[in-house]
């Protein structure tokens, strides 16, 4: 007979934050570094930030690099596409790796494997070597998936949107920060006395060292789940092994807006969910992302610089908030395959980046303004499929929950077959089902009884 759980500190003295039945934190305290929850948060966003700094370290230094390596516009365009295309498959693979090995080992390994590419950027000597280092460095963007997976493992349904949004947003910040960091580092090195063509090479050691150090920090200080690491939990039976990531400042500002706009999206997702549940999350995402598309179309049409800057900032706010809102929904799609789902969503985003650059921004078929307008139309069209998202237990944009009375438990238990249930593999999903009841929003009617009759304790 289970004792009723209460989610307060007296039952779980070893956690600094209040936790639910899965020991996931129910509060998000950004100023805390308490292990394991907030420490995991800070480790994940900082290491993700370092990967963004490395991947986008080349663009601000391109005026020097293109002269040193004798690059053409085509070479530069191809390298830019290569930088984001590697991550498409790397993110999907990372999802699987997280499911198998846990986010701590998966992300530390990926970060360490990609640092040689950043170190070797310093010895690139041709357009091909430049493309290759950007391609392999870009693989590190798969740490996005491990970040989201880790946050989904550490934080409960109530705050998972916020945690995912802040971690993702502050990590993405690296792409904006690098536009300011790299030129600064370059100038310092050049002023010390290095020739320009040598100074940019030395400058690349900074993001490379930062990335190496963050990998070490994740490995030694991190922990996969609130109760321990995957290897410990797998052995003790808590987690089974499943078989089956003046132009410079304007450019920087788009990335820097991530500091609050992406977290904002995550926070809004959680706030809306309190009242309207999952349906609210989906509606808000559709609205925000469509508006992002509208502002993108506008950006391609405006004439003056000052209006363009304003529209760019508004556009970036909506687009990044949509990213935060997306990962307010992803943690609920599957419990068994959280990694793969996160990986495919993250990878899918990169596919968008590749396609958009290839179709609209390569060569001279479309002027940049036309390309931006068409990209906005593409955003709106790609957002339409959201109308079809449907959770049987909560509903979709236009439908309520299934009339058959499907519960959260039915949905998450359907991922396990009876043999696996006999072995007890479904236990963590069971707890999650109970904790995710908050996604119904504030409804007056009481919850239908669970179909398998197991008495559940309420947080």
């Amino acid at each position: 007979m289970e004792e009723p759980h209460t989610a307060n500190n007296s039952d779980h003295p070893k956690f600094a934050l209040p936790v639910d039945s899965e020991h996931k934190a129910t509060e998000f305290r950004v100023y805390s570094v308490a292990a394991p929850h907030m420490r995991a948060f800070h480790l994940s966003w900082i290491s993700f930030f370092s990967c963004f700094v490395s991947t986008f370290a080349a663009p601000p230094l391109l005026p020097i690099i293109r002269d040193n390596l004798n690059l053409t516009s085509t070479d530069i365009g191809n390298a830019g596409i290569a930088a984001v295309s590697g991550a498409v498959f790397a993110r999907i693979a990372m999802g699987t790796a997280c499911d198998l090995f846990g986010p701590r080992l998966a992300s530390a390994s990926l970060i360490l494997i990609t640092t040689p590419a950043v170190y070797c950027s310093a010895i690139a000597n041709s357009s091909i070597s430049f493309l290759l280092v950007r391609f392999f460095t870009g693989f590190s963007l798969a740490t996005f998936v491990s970040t989201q997976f880790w946050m989904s493992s550490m934080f409960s349904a109530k705050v998972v949107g916020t945690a995912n949004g802040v971690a993702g947003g502050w990590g993405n910040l690296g792409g904006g920060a690098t536009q300011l960091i790299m030129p600064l580092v370059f100038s310092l090195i050049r002023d010390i006395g290095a020739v320009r063509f040598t100074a940019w090479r030395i400058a690349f050691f900074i993001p490379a060292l930062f990335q190496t150090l963050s990998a070490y920090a994740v490995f030694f200080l991190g922990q996969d789940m609130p109760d321990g690491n995957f290897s410990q939990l797998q052995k003790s039976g808590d987690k089974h092994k499943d078989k089956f990531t003046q132009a410079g400042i304007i450019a920087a500002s788009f990335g820097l807006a991530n500091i609050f706009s992406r977290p904002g999206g995550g926070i809004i997702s959680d706030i809306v969910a309190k009242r309207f549940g999952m349906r609210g999350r989906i509606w808000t995402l559709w609205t925000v992302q469509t508006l992002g598309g509208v502002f993108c179309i506008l950006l391609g049409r405006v004439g003056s610089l000052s209006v363009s800057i304003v529209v760019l900032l508004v556009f970036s706010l909506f687009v990044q908030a949509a990213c935060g809102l997306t990962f307010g929904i992803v943690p609920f799609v599957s419990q068994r395959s959280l990694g793969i789902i996160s990986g495919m969503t993250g990878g899918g985003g990169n596919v968008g980046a590749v396609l958009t650059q290839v179709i609209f921004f390569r060569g001279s078929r479309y002027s940049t303004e036309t390309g931006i307008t068409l990209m906005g139309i593409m955003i709106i069209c790609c957002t339409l499929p959201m109308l079809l998202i449907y959770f049987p237990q909560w509903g979709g944009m236009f439908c309520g929950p299934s009339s058959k009375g499907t519960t959260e438990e039915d949905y998450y238990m359907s991922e396990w077959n009876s043999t696996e249930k006999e072995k007890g593999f479904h236990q963590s999903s069971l707890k999650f089902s109970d904790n995710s009841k908050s996604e119904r929003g504030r409804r007056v009617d009481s919850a239908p009884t669970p179909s398998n009759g197991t008495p559940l304790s309420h947080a």
Partner: protein
Amino acid sequence: MESHLLKAFLIFFCLLGTCYGDVLFSSLSHTLVVTASPNQGQVLNAGEDSITVTWGLNQSFPTGTDELYKEVKVNLCYAPISQVDRAWRKTVDNLGKDKTCQFTIVNKPYERNQSIEWIINKDVPTATYFVRAYAYNSAGEEVAYDQTADGKKSSNLFEIQAISGRHLSLDIASVCFSAFSLLSLFGFFLAEKSKRRQVKN
């Protein structure tokens, strides 16, 4: 408040543009003469080799033509072949926006028949070049020019080979740090494996 500041900024820059005048290359008089030491097709090394440049008034013009020339600037300019697919080196008629000539060999007060020996900067990229001289009036506007290449910039061009910027110490550092990263990764896996064995036992 911010929009007012932005508008003021933009107006200021527009006026600045008219101050420095939108001088067009096609409006310049071809009254100078400039010669440079490299021959057609010669390859020079940046940081090592030098170029000797001589400039003055083209003798076929009357003596008083250069009275208004106060300053002369001799530049190293990209030949068309080095501008292909590189928008940051584009040639436009408006000299305020023209990007053909990005390296200054010499910039001094104008005097007839001067020359200079210039060691090629280590910043100069690998490309095909020619030399062009501009004469400026007292208002700082270009008024005359000459170049070592012909009108189509297709003859009498020379090449410069840039420095690589790489050093042996940098190469060694890159390889060592990369190897260290991969070794650490290997170490992590061993550590994880031994931890698993410990938990098992």
